[in-house]
């Protein structure tokens, strides 16, 4: 067991809730008042498969669970599961619902090393690298003379068609770095 701050929770983490292991499907961080923050967590109980929503203060200390982890790469989607492959070419299936918050970044040809977590031999969660690089399939050109003060625009990622906000200077075909915890654009890579 380990101590995990609620403010550091991300999809794939496993924590103990009421003495049962739950895997975090989605962790949503919101600033509350006076610089406090709350974390809304969508989590799946690993014993009952029941999904529930919980909430914590960012500085709440939770009980993290130390589990077996393996580095894997994403292979393909075989409904209702995503398949990951480890260094020994073993395939590990994880149901899509459990990693729904990551699906927007999962592409068949991705080479990112993902951390797959196992509970009692069963793959239960995936953590992507802190940052990943993806290609922009579509975005509007930056408007010339735009004085509206808007500094971001919407862009669509290749393969996953996921939409996110990027800086106005990003163009079609650009590769961008994305923070997988916040899901936000970090910088242009080329």
């Amino acid at each position: 067991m380990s101590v995990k701050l609620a403010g550091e929770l991300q999809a794939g983490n496993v924590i103990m809730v009421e003495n049962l292991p739950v895997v975090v499907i989605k962790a949503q961080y919101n600033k509350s008042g006076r610089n406090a923050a709350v974390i809304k967590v969508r989590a799946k109980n690993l014993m009952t498969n029941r999904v529930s929503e919980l909430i914590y203060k960012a500085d709440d200390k939770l009980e993290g669970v130390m589990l077996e982890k393996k580095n894997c790469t994403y292979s393909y989607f075989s409904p209702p599961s995503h398949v990951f492959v480890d260094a020994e070419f073993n395939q590990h299936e994880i149901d899509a619902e459990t990693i729904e918050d990551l699906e927007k970044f999962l592409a068949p040809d991705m080479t990112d090393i993902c951390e797959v977590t196992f509970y009692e031999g069963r793959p239960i969660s995936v953590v992507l690298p802190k940052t990943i690089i993806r290609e922009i399939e579509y975005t509007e050109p930056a408007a010339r003379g735009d004085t509206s003060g808007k500094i971001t625009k919407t862009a669509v990622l290749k393969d996953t068609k996921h939409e996110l906000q990027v800086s106005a200077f990003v163009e079609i075909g650009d590769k961008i770095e994305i923070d997988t915890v916040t899901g936000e654009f970090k910088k242009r890579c080329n």
Partner: protein
Amino acid sequence: MPRWDIFCRVVDNYGDIGVCWRLVQQLADEHGADVRLWVDHLESFARLCPGISPLLAEQHVGPIEIRHWPADFPVVDAADIVIEAFACELPATYIAAMARRTAPPVWINLEYLSAETWVDDCHLLTSPHPGLPLTKHFFFPGFTSKTGGLLREKNLLTDRAAFDATAAAEFWHSLAVPPPADGELLISLFCYENPALPELLECWAEGSEAVRVLTTPGAATEQTARWLGKTLVPGDSVRQKSLTVQPLPFLPQARFDHLLWACDVNFVRGEDSFVRAQWAQRPFVWQIYPQTENAHFVKLEAFLTRYLGEYDDKAVVQRCWRAWNGTGDLGIAWRDFVANRQAIQQHGTAWAAQLDRAGNLANNLARFVRGI
């Protein structure tokens, strides 16, 4: 009858204790609740509630028990319903007492007020304690029926409606403030230190319309005094061209409501006065509590979006509020705002009616607790 323990830490000024005191009174007066209020800083509380002695660790105000919350917290039995206001951390010994109960208490974290949409999704979510058989419920005030609503006493709106010119004249007389002259614009000013204030005072002084600004104790009076280059104490009246400045004494909550009702425009700040200004149904300008990473601008815009949803001339209010919070030309924005104050006031009345339909926080809280 179930017992309530409400914990309040005074972080700064009177916002936290102001909200807690309103809630406690409403629970006791309107729901007959047996309430014990724990406050770490009784001096601040005593200003809001002059019946309080900062020196007494235990005292009563009517049926409400007031306890000082010391650093070395005493061993006490936990109540049936426990509220930690604004996410204050409960004493470890008290949490242990909660866990020792045969029936665990209903544990509520009363959160800060925000108009952001995520609040609707987080209201009433549970937070199981990592090591003890206790579950905390997050209760969010808010502006929709999916939240806990806003604090509003049962008689507030009828009292507000009954506050006529005669009542206003009596209020001014009680403060030894002359009633407004014909055409004089009356403004209350309650704010944090605000870099935009000198520009606004300049604008009022140089304008063609007579303006009387009633400053509240603290930053509003102190910053205005610096701008005037004079010391200001309650009872003073200082003229600067079109502007007259009159500093007020500290007003208890009910009297502060009367001030908001009697003025033409109210400048408010933080949470408690911000809510009261909405029930006052007068044009108001909000200074939001500043947060790191400018998170407060998101909250400001979230409120503007909700508040101005049906209003035709949104930009007039948006520009003035944004400028008061540090972005934009306040002088121009203010002139537009005040020129449109009749329409803004009508909108404020409709907005208060909309808020009223969402219910009020104390009732919603009592209902939620009964349902567990």
